[in-house]
């Protein structure tokens, strides 16, 4: 018996560029940027003081059946609920819910929650014993119990988005959350896809949600010198594949998809939006601070995904084009990522690499960290549907060492059947998905 085919029957996102599938797509087509000065906290003195924040017109309660059930929800789960509702409704489950909730699973790449920073830091400072250079436990307990709210703390656990989505959509099947840094939601979708293929579920809600636009998040990335410290208009800061690129710009939000066993989708009359045909995962096993310089891990993930999809990277189709028509790059805009990702794509596709358009939507909506892979996967599906490629914004001073087609600055009309989406995480996790136009045979 061959393994079941897996299709996408719904998707939704919440990003700095909006929170409808079509609205955000239009803005990506216009090469717009979601970046602006940070409003979540007073960031003016930080080395990086801008990001791509979800705008205040997003109210997660408008996406819910009963907002009271989610009254304590933190930001990650709010984004997730907003995105998941769009996906759920597009799949048609709002009017015809799945018959057996135990055959519906969840696999997310959801980030850890936002620390209650002022109270967290305040409690620690108040318990600091300058003589011993240690935090006094008893004093800390007193301060923390007074200052840190129970629900705010519990909602920071990384599996809380699972709990909220399960509650809202009545999901009772297998549920997992992975947190492999910037690769998390690509990995989540890949594992969800694998679970349906194996028969562990008929329907999987999958994707990611994350914000690290908070004081310790920006601190951590600033100390690693991973963020752009561009002085000037924030919308010009993210410059993937450019000579002058100086780091990524943080984004936030969520991307959610409904994956479904094809037979199950067809039997209930759902419309497949695209088909997932390959997933590859690897580890660099190199250093915690650096990417393996030859792109060994990234190439292994891409190759594994192509192999599962039965796609020969050296082959061309009847139209003379390579079989992969578009690559949604990890494309963070750091020196290291962009050059090694380019190298890895060349390792895999050889001479064909130059003929595969590859762009980074992080240039427009920033880096959604754990959620990045999900919105980039959705971008591939939209490219297939619309026959358009999103551009790499701000691509004005190409790095001469990076010589692929990065779809500079302007969206491009292009017939697209099959795409890959790459995500690479700190710590060396690499994940790639292959998605193709749904065809009946």
């Amino acid at each position, binding site marked *: 018996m061959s393994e079941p085919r897996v299709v996408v029957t719904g998707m939704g996102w919440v990003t700095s560029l909006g929170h409808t599938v079509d609205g955000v797509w239009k803005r990506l087509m216009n090469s717009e940027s979601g970046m602006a000065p940070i409003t979540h906290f007073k960031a003016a003195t930080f080395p990086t003081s801008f990001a791509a924040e979800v705008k205040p017109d997003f109210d997660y309660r408008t996406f819910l059946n009963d907002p009271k059930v989610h009254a304590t929800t933190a930001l990650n789960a709010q984004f997730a609920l907003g995105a998941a509702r769009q996906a759920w409704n597009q799949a048609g489950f709002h009017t015809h819910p799945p018959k057996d909730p135990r055959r519906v699973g969840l696999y997310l790449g959801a980030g850890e929650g936002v620390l209650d920073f002022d109270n967290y830091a305040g409690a620690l400072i108040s318990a*600091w014993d300058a003589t011993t250079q240690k935090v006094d436990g008893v004093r800390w307990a007193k301060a923390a119990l007074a200052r840190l709210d129970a629900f705010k703390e519990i909602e920071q656990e990384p599996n809380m988005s699972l709990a909220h989505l399960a509650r809202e959509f009545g999901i009772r099947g297998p549920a997992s959350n992975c947190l492999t840094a910037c690769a998390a939601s690509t990995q989540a979708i890949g594992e969800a896809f694998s679970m349906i293929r194996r028969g562990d579920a008929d329907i999987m809600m999958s994707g990611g949600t994350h914000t690290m636009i908070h004081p310790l998040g920006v601190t951590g990335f600033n100390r690693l010198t991973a963020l752009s410290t561009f002085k000037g208009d924030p919308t010009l800061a993210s410059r993937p594949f450019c000579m002058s690129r100086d780091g990524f710009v943080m984004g936030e939000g969520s991307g959610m998809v409904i994956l479904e066993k094809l037979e199950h989708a067809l039997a209930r009359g759902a419309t497949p939006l695209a088909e997932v045909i390959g997933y590859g995962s690897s580890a660099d096993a190199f250093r915690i601070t650096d990417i393996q310089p030859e792109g060994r891990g990234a190439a292994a993930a891409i190759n594994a995904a192509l192999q599962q999809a039965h796609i020969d990277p050296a082959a061309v189709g009847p139209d003379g084009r390579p079989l992969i028509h578009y690559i949604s790059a990890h494309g963070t805009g750091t020196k290291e990522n962009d050059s090694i990702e380019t190298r890895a794509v060349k390792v895999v596709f050889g001479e064909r690499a130059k003929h595969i358009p590859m762009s980074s939507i992080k240039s427009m909506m920033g880096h959604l960290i754990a959620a990045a892979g999900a919105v980039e996967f959705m971008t591939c599906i939209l490219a297939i549907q619309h026959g358009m490629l999103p551009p790499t914004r701000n691509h004005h001073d190409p790095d001469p060492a990076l010589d692929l087609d990065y779809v500079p600055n302007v969206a491009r009309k292009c017939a697209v059947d099959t795409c890959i989406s790459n995500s690479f995480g700190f710590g060396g996790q690499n994940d790639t998905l292959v998605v193709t136009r749904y065809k009946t045979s």
Partner: protein
Amino acid sequence: MMDVRQNELKHQPSLRNSVTMRHFMPQKRRVVITGIGTTSAVGVGMKSLWNALISGQSGAKLCHTFDLSGFSCPFVAQLAADQLDIKQFVPKSYRKATKVMARDIELAVAAAHEAVNDAGLITKSHEAADGKVSMPATQMGCQIGAGSIAAEENELTVAFASSQTADGEIDLGAWGSSGMQNITPLWMLKYLPNMLASHVSIIHDCQGPSNTITCGEASALLSIGESMRVIGRAAADCCLSGGVESKVNLMGVLRQLYSKRLATASLSDDPSSIIRPFNPSATGGMAGEGGAILVLEELESARARGAKIQVELAGFGASQSFCQDTVGIGAEVDGAGIAQAIETALHEAGVKPADVDAIVPFGCGVPGIDASEAAALRKVFGERVSKIPLVTISTVTGNCGAGFGGVAASVAVQCLREQKLPARIQGGKAGESVGGVDGASIGARDAVLNTIVVTTTSLGGQNAAIVLRRIS
């Protein structure tokens, strides 16, 4: 050779809901557990843990890193200060990297070291082997469940203290412009949950699929299940799998309290009497640290390298509970989610509930969670539930979060290897256990054990279960 499992599949149990269960097929590629490595409150390695379990020793003690008397329970399940010197568990060339290991990472790296040695696996970590490793790196995967790692309090606070206002609050402006320079540039890399798997995969050169599941106390079993699937779909032949977490820190204890999982105890109490699994008098658990890494291998590949094969990972199941309070502070009263995970795992293993010889439950000593588990076990095993031996380990481990299921699975493997059941302490009187399970105190004893079920449930409502089977 007669395939044991194929034979058993002919006698599939009749399940209550065949519509749901017909989908869950066994894997073609069978997975065996060839190595276990634990870290727990009684030390590094299964030897110390097994000795404690057999002799009925507790892992609870007064916290030696912080005075926790400001909370409802001052005790923790923590390794003694001299029980883990991380440099002993990494190859010489990797010693420098131990500087960027949070506590959770140290515990994971030590557990992986133990597991690899137990499996007789030669990896890159064996520098004397000069590259002659048991498995190609690309065939090695790594799935290690993790918690949200707590920032080391003293390191961060000394930096915060440099940016405070006159009334002792954090001055965000000063922090942004200068204060943050007081933390080490690599600070964040200590605390990313995937750094457990990242360090372990670097040390042992695991270039295959690598994942970090963060589902609270269900993380380790979910990871073991995922490793089983990764091997099943031939994405790897061998996985280092499990979970590790330390909740022995201020934020960890606070969140145990806030999620109503912390016992009520005072300094004058005997620490070993606090955690009382399935005992009607229980008041809660305590923060623990540790976890386990297991070596999972595809059966034929393990045979080919001459591994000692004693235990098969025969089935896996997972589910999500209905959480009345949404976040799952209160457990599902009827235990439906836990039961579903166990039934799925049994079905895949082709094992009837009547053939299960022992169960390693979460048994954390939190009354509501114990009751939910007991209800689930009753649902799956019926009246026999009062006669199936329960192996309760939280008296030694405390709540080590993402690590718990790994320790539980390792203890189950050890029971199958030794054909022995450990002692159960603080279980209360015979016939009075929560939910009518076999929960009374009892000494260690020999037992014929062929099949053991391990299950955990998390804050947030994720459940996972595995079925382990002895291969003779």
